[in-house]
C-alpha cells in the first residue's frame, strides 16, 4: 500500500550524490557480494533502512532516485510510469482512499526540487527474478543500467498499422540490460 516517505526530499537528493556509483562503492559492493554471509547481512540492513524510510518492498531494482524518493511499488498496481486515472480529487489512492497516491506525492516532492523531468523517464518492465535482492549492490555493480530511459521525440503519427517502420526508441527502450 502507498507509503509516505520519512526522508525529506533535499536530504534524499544529497544522499543520492554521495551514493552515486564510484570506484569506492563498486569495490565495496564487489567484496560484499563475494561473501554469502556479508551479502545476506548487507541485504538485510538495506531492507531495514528502506522499509522504515520508504515502505520498501525489495523489488531489487530501485526506482526511488527518479520518483522523488516515493516508492512506486507501494502503488496497488505497482505503477512505475506515473499515476493511474483513478486518483481522487484530493490526491487519494483509489484503492486505499485514506492514503495519498504515491504519484501525487512523487510529483509534489520532485517538483519542489526542480526534478519533474525525472518523472518523464520511461521505466522498463521489471525483472521479477530480482525480488528480495539488494538494489544497492545491483546499482553499484551497474546491473540497474537501462531500468529507465529518456523519452526522446519520435516521428509524427502516420496511422501506419503494420509495416516495419523505424522505431527509434527501440534500442534504448528494450535493448537495455
Amino acid at each position: 500500500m502507498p507509503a509516505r516517505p520519512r526522508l525529506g526530499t533535499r536530504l534524499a537528493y544529497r544522499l543520492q550524490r554521495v551514493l552515486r556509483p564510484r570506484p569506492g562503492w563498486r569495490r565495496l559492493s564487489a567484496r560484499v557480494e563475494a561473501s554469502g554471509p556479508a551479502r545476506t547481512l548487507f541485504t538485510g540492513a538495506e531492507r531495514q533502512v528502506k522499509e522504515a524510510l520508504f515502505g520498501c518492498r525489495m523489488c531489487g531494482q530501485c526506482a526511488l532516485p527518479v520518483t522523488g524518493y516515493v516508492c512506486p511499488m507501494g502503488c496497488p498496481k505497482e505503477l512505475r510510469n506515473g499515476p493511474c486515472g483513478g486518483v481522487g480529487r484530493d490526491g487519494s489512492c483509489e484503492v486505499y482512499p485514506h492514503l495519498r497516491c504515491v504519484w501525487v506525492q512523487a510529483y509534489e516532492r520532485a517538483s519542489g526540487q526542480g526534478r519533474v523531468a525525472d518523472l518523464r523517464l520511461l521505466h522498463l518492465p521489471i525483472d521479477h527474478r530480482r525480488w528480495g535482492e539488494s538494489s544497492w549492490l545491483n546499482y553499484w555493480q551497474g546491473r540497474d543500467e537501462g531500468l529507465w530511459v529518456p523519452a526522446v521525440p519520435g516521428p509524427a503519427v502516420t496511422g501506419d498499422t503494420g509495416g516495419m517502420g523505424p522505431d527509434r526508441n527501440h534500442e534504448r527502450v528494450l535493448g537495455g540490460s
Partner: protein
Amino acid sequence: MSGLSDRLTSGGFAVTAEISPPRGAGTGTITETAGLLRDWVDAVNVTDNQGSNVRLASWAGSLAAMAAGLEPVMQMTCRDRNRIALQSDLLGASALGIRNVLAMTGDHPKFGDHPEAKPVFDLDSIQLLWTLRHMRDQGAALSGRKLDPPPECFLGAVENPFAPPEGFRADRLGKKVEAGAQFVQTQFVFDVAGFGQWMAQVRDLGLHERCYILAGVGAVRSRRGLDFMRDNVPGVTVPDDVYRRLTAVPADQTAAEGARLAAETIAQLTTMEGVAGVHLFMAGNERAVPGVLEEAGVGAVRDGR
C-alpha cells in the same frame, strides 16, 4: 487495415463508442448493439472485463463486432494477464483481423466481482504500449525471439485530463506517445474549459501532432446516473454548473437534457484545435447516438466527416 486509422490519417473527425460484452457465453447483445452503432461510429471499443467484472473476453467480443460489420478496438488491460499472455493475445487478435488495440492498466480487482483475485499488473499501460509496438515494428517478442509474421495494430491509449496530479497529466500522455500510442481516448469530458486547459498543455508539447486525440463524451440519462458518476466513478469530475443544469429540468426530461448537453459538448470539441474526434460513453443508450451526433453537426459515417 484499420478504418479508424484511415479516418484519422485522412483528417476526418472520428467517432468511437463502447460495447460491454455480456456476462454469459453468447454474442447476441453484441450483434444487436453493433447494428445500432454501425452507421454512426468508425469503431467500437470492446471492453476487457470492465470494472474488474467477469465478462466475455474482449477478443471474442471484438470478433463478434467484426462479424456484425463494426470495426472493433480491442481493449487490453494489464490486470489479469502477464507479459506472456498479453503478447500472445496480440498475436491472436492480429491473426484474426483485429486491427485496433487499446492498451490500459485496468481497474484494480478490488472494484469488481472477484475482489479476492490476484492483481497481476506485470506491465503497466505504458510498458504494454512499448511491448506491442516492439512486437509490430521489430517483429520480435520482448524475449527477442522473432515473430513471423509480426502483428499489425493501430495502438491506442487512454488518459484522464482531470485527475491529480493535474500538472503531470499532459506529460503522462507524452510518455504514452513515446511508448507507441497513436491515438488516445480521454475520460468523460463534462468540464470543457478544464479539458481546454489540458489540450493547451498537450499542444505545447506537440503531442496533438504525434497522436490523435479523441475526447470522451457521454449523455447522462438520469439523476441517479449523474449522482453515481459524480460521487463514485474515480476520475470523473462534474462541474457545479453542469450538475445544476441537469438537475434543473424535471426528472423525466433528464435524458433529453443530457443528450442536448452531449451534443453541445461535441460541437464545442469539433472546433478545438488538436481534437481529432470523440469517444462516446453511451453503452446501453445506443439509440440516442444518431440524435446526439446529428445535433452536434457530426453526422453519420457514410456522409464522411
